């Protein structure tokens, strides 16, 4: 049981480290890099558009 707790704690600490690293990286993003991310976000959103429409239709029918 102790091992499981230690493993979970280690995993959580790694997640927090990753998050901190990601935050630090984002702080250094240039406007040009952020503009490229916006294109990717929009492309990803378009990919999920059919799924959103399907979900909305299902919700409307309930």
């Amino acid at each position, binding site marked *: 049981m102790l091992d499981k707790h230690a493993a979970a704690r280690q995993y959580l600490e790694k997640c927090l480290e990753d998050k901190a690293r990601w935050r630090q990286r984002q702080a250094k993003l240039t*406007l040009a890099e952020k503009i490229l991310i916006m294109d990717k976000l929009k492309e990803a959103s378009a990919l999920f558009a059919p799924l959103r429409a399907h979900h909305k239709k299902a919700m409307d029918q309930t």
Partner: protein
Amino acid sequence: MSLSKALCVIQELQKRGILPRYAITGAIAALAYIEPTLTNDIDVLVEVSAFDSMASGLLLSTRLDAALADLGYCERVDVGILVEGWPIQFIPVSNELDEASLDSAVLKKIDPNMDVGVFVMRAEDIIAKALSIGREKDYARIEAFLTQNALDISLLRDRLVEQNLIGAWSVFCAKTGMKDFLGLD
């Protein structure tokens, strides 16, 4: 799809004298200060003289549309004309806050290696605008500016006082449970 190219087109419209004064607003303007957030279009605040006024009071974007067509962009979608995959929505100045925001707009270089820059609203004006609209997504944007420390507090305080947005700020604080660190309440 290229936001960078779409912003270059906005710069080109200004070079051609079609956009005398403008400021990019909304999520694309926020990009200059905070982390990227999803948006589907580019909102551009434009002074009224860029539009053709009808006797009824209706404003038509005839000249803007013609200039975009001249650059090869003719496809209209629900919110505006599609430019490099991004719909551009031209919004006429409609109140004093918009006017002040245009006056305070700042030139931001898209890429340090390119000679491309566009005017974007000041961070404090994006927040003031979001407060005045007051939808959930506007509040989320304000919180992003606050948590990422991407604003000048004294400039924001001055703008909110000047534009009578103290009440809107109080509502925002009450709804989000945020302490009124501006001391306006």
